[in-house]
């Protein structure tokens, strides 16, 4: 009796609370919307516009709108991109990006499969951790590690070792080749391939393999007809996540490729930083975007086709999120690809049939063959996993070890010493005349200020938008969804130059019309870092929210908590692990970023990554090893801390 009275008492207030949330739901999404509109979409549109304009003097743009000039400049900017010099670099970039994606897939699929089929949970977690940890170390440092390994002369560790062993007589030409770039990128992006595939295999129902075996399919057939098609979304997501940063890469190409390995990213960079031909740089950047757009459409199509496969937790993985964002686009073209793929299957069936008729094996031989497959497959998988772990960890370990070398060399071990560290800390750096400990410390300070600010702001904004997306409906939610995840699919270099152009326009306007002199500095850095962090934090937080049982919140309301108290007492504590993970990701991304910081930094506000890059791209020295080691230790501590925090809150929940 009591309860019924109480609940009827509360009912009107429930309704009120709901209305309030509905009204506020859109408002919660506002900061993220504005931020991404102003600092992502608008700059992108500006770059698109100036790509049709004429080049002015000294890195300026002449805003000329006549039809005649538009035609001329279209020719200038876009057709120039397809001329010999540029087109060569485009072809090379495509080539390297595809090769990188291919190798990531070849190594990453079996590795992901290996990890997700470990029986013991801790083994699985640990194997995954071994793949992810290198990912948390600074990208510049990871690329630098390959410089140490691949050095062309006797001072390259690989060459040195091979020479010592007598396997080669002359040092191999390893550095400054497209191969070096490919190796560096496979190294850098392998985790992007492994994670989505791991998630897909995790969700795969292995009962289906038994069904395939039961119906007479051997291990090979069961894999290609059942496992692979059903984990294809993971493969496609992974390929896209590798391909997009690979095609737009700057750091790897610059550090490992030199002039032989120059890629689109360097081309764009040079137009904005070197020759100052902004309009051409913008055009190049738009052509790059077109390539990326094609990749995204392909992804969306496949995701659409396979979206209907049963999954234990949808909206959990970035793959699902991406697929939803581009789903609309795909729906339009899906019928065509559907029939194409049907034709493909028909054809492959036909070919199988012919092959079987031609090379039909006796049952006994077939059995033998199948048993050989059964025995060798796990061996190959182990071998691949072992190779991947060595590949992922050797560069980092080499880097660490040689930072304690008692000599100038990064290839020949001469004894243990901490002299590089003391040299660093006492201010005796002599890598470069204008590179001092003071500058290094200053850059650490900049990185920390920008990192902390960007983390705090982006986390708050992302949590707000995630809540609003998860719990309320408002007009423009679907476009916002696209806006929220689009930055993930846009090459960093494009984001970087678009911010450069955007801030320049704003500064010009302020100087001309408001008489205020503005310069790049902390503010531009923080604004930009927040913009590229928001989507990543939102993905992580939304995944957590999607996995949360809504009954907890309903129970809280049922027990009389209003919206406010429900949020702070129930929702927030439950989503906290996601928030912490998102914040950590934001901090890491901010520290890791080179390109966007490079284009938005001011005179005295170079971040640590920018400073380390400017050193590491030119030389290989033990001092850089020492700096790298310290950065690796800091990021490892950070990851460790977050794991502890997450473990604790998971324990509580």
């Amino acid at each position, binding site marked *: 009796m009591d309860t019924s009275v109480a609940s009827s008492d509360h009912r009107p207030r429930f309704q009120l609370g709901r209305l309030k949330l509905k009204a506020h739901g859109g408002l919660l999404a506002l900061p993220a919307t504005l931020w991404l509109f102003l600092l992502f979409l608008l700059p992108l549109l500006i770059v698109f516009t100036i790509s049709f304009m004429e080049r002015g003097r000294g890195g300026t743009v002449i805003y000329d709108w006549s039809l005649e000039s538009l035609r001329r400049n279209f020719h200038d900017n876009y057709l120039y991109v397809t001329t010999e010099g540029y087109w060569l670099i485009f072809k090379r970039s495509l080539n390297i990006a595809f090769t990188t994606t291919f190798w990531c897939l070849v190594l990453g699929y079996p590795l992901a499969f290996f990890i997700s089929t470990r029986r013991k949970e801790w083994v699985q977690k640990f194997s995954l951790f071994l793949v992810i940890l290198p990912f948390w170390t600074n990208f510049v440092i990871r690329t630098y590690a390959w410089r140490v390994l691949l050095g062309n002369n006797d001072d390259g560790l690989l060459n040195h070792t091979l020479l010592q062993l007598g396997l080669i007589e002359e040092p191999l030409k390893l550095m400054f080749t497209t191969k070096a770039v490919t190796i560096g990128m496979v190294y850098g992006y392998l985790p992007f391939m492994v994670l989505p595939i791991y998630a897909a295999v995790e969700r795969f*129902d292995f*009962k*289906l393999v*038994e*069904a*395939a*075996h*039961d*119906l*007479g*399919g*051997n291990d090979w*057939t069961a894999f290609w*007809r*059942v496992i692979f*098609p*059903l984990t294809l979304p993971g493969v496609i997501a992974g390929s896209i996540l590798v391909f997009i940063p690979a095609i737009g890469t700057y750091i790897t190409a610059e550090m490992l490729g030199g002039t032989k390995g120059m890629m689109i990213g360097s081309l764009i960079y040079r137009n904005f930083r070197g020759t100052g031909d902004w309009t051409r740089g913008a055009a190049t950047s738009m052509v790059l975007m077109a390539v990326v757009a094609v990749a995204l459409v392909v992804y969306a199509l496949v995701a659409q086709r*396979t979206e*209907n*496969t*049963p999954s234990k937790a949808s909206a959990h993985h970035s793959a699902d999120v991406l697929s939803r964002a581009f789903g609309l686009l795909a729906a339009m073209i899906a019928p065509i690809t559907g029939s194409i793929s049907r034709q493909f299957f028909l054809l492959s*069936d*036909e070919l*199988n*049939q012919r092959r*079987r008729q031609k090379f*039909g094996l006796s*049952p006994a031989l*077939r*059995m033998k063959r*199948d*048993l050989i497959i*059964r025995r060798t497959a796990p061996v190959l998988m182990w071998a691949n996993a072992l190779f991947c772990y060595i590949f992922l960890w050797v560069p980092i370990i080499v880097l660490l070890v040689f930072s304690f070398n008692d000599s100038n060399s990064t290839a020949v071990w001469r004894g243990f010493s901490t002299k590089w560290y003391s040299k660093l800390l006492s201010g005796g750096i002599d890598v470069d005349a204008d590179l001092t400990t003071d500058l290094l410390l200053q850059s650490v300070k900049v990185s920390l200020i920008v990192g902390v600010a960007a983390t705090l702001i982006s986390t708050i904004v992302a949590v707000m938008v995630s809540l609003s997306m998860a719990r309320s409906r408002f007009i423009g939610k679907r476009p916002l969804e696209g806006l929220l995840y689009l930055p993930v699919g846009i090459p960093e270099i494009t984001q970087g130059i678009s911010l450069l152009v955007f801030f320049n326009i704003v500064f010009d306007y302020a100087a001309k019309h408001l008489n205020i002199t503005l310069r790049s500095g902390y503010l531009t850095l923080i604004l930009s870092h927040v913009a590229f962090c928001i989507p990543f934090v939102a993905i992580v937080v939304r995944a957590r929210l999607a996995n949360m049982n809504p009954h907890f919140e309903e129970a809280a309301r049922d027990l009389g908590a209003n919206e406010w108290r429900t949020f702070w007492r129930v929702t927030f504590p439950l989503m906290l692990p996601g928030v912490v993970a998102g914040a950590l990701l934001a901090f890491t991304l901010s520290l890791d970023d080179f390109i966007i910081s490079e284009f938005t930094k001011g005179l005295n506000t170079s971040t640590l990554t920018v400073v380390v890059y400017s050193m590491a791209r030119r030389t290989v020295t033990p001092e850089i090893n020492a700096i790298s080691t310290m950065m690796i230790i800091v990021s490892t501590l950070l990851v460790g801390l977050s794991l502890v925090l997450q473990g604790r809150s998971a324990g509580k929940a």
Partner: protein
Amino acid sequence: MTAIDVELRHVVKEFAGRRKENAAVKAVDDVSLQIHKGEFFALLGPSGCGKTTTLRMIAGFEDVSRGEILIRGKQVQGVPPFHRPVNTVFQDYALFPHMNVLQNVMFGLQMEGVSRADAKQRAIEALELVQLPHTADRKPRELSGGQQQRIALARALVKHPTVLLLDEPLGALDLKLRKAMQFELKEMQLKLGITFIYVTHDQEEALTMADRIAVMNYGKVLQVGTPEDIYERPHTRFVADFIGETNFIKGRLCDRAGVRGEVELPSGYKVGAVLDDPAMSVGSEVTVAIRPEKLTLKHGNGTEPHHDSGTTLIPGRLQQSVYIGTDTRHVVSFGYNGSSSQVVVRTQNFRRSEDEQFQNGENVFVYWVDENARVLVD
């Protein structure tokens, strides 16, 4: 003698213990079975009894730890599932979600190298057999549970397996559909003449469909027999309890003549029953098992408890009568020495005349024919 399709000889399946100090867990413990050609054979038992593991060993998904399995007289140790002449209908059907119904059914034939046209023809025939040819172009998720079940059946049957293995195939269906499918499965099995090995925890399902049943518990086969054998002549308390409802009355065997035994209850009354094991010795502690429907209730006035001429009559007090449609279920308690035990009596409601009406709390007599009660070793 009928041909044997599947034979298990002292089959043991051990799973490694979770921790090192734990010994291996025996999921299947020394199971020997002979399953005849064309037989509908049920493996019945509670969850975790090893019935599914047994089935999976026949299918080839699990290796045998010890012992051997023969299919049509051939050892299948080391033969992977895709080279065994058996097919499985999985518990949750395991239909391939990325293929449509026709592609699912054709899959197995294509694995054999049947040409596309033939495979399609045979798949459509199989779909006709399960009365779902119109679903050929649909994806499995667009079908109801019952339809998915039939597709899984068609997918397995299209390969004409020597033995069809069914792992609780009806478990996910609702009661009405389950009953209909039971009937249909049985019909199909008779029509096709394929040996069915059917795993279930539902005793009614096993009794309805199977030619023979093996009751399992803790990895062991407790009893193999026809449904009538299992129901009417259970050898162990577990089998009697698991199949249908059974009353157990504890006592001591005080006399025996051939297979007839006399058991003295703690209250001093003597009751008659058939000995399950003719070698039982007088004086041992035993349990009398008797089905509720084999008991009759009589009014208490003017009757004396007795045990003679093959019938038993003992007094008790009616605790509760529950009307459940076709039957009425009575709970009767026997009090003695401060403690009490209960039996359940089921009477059919076919007359409901005055003299069959009982009042709660009334002193009544429970009556049975001794042949219907069985003495089991404790």
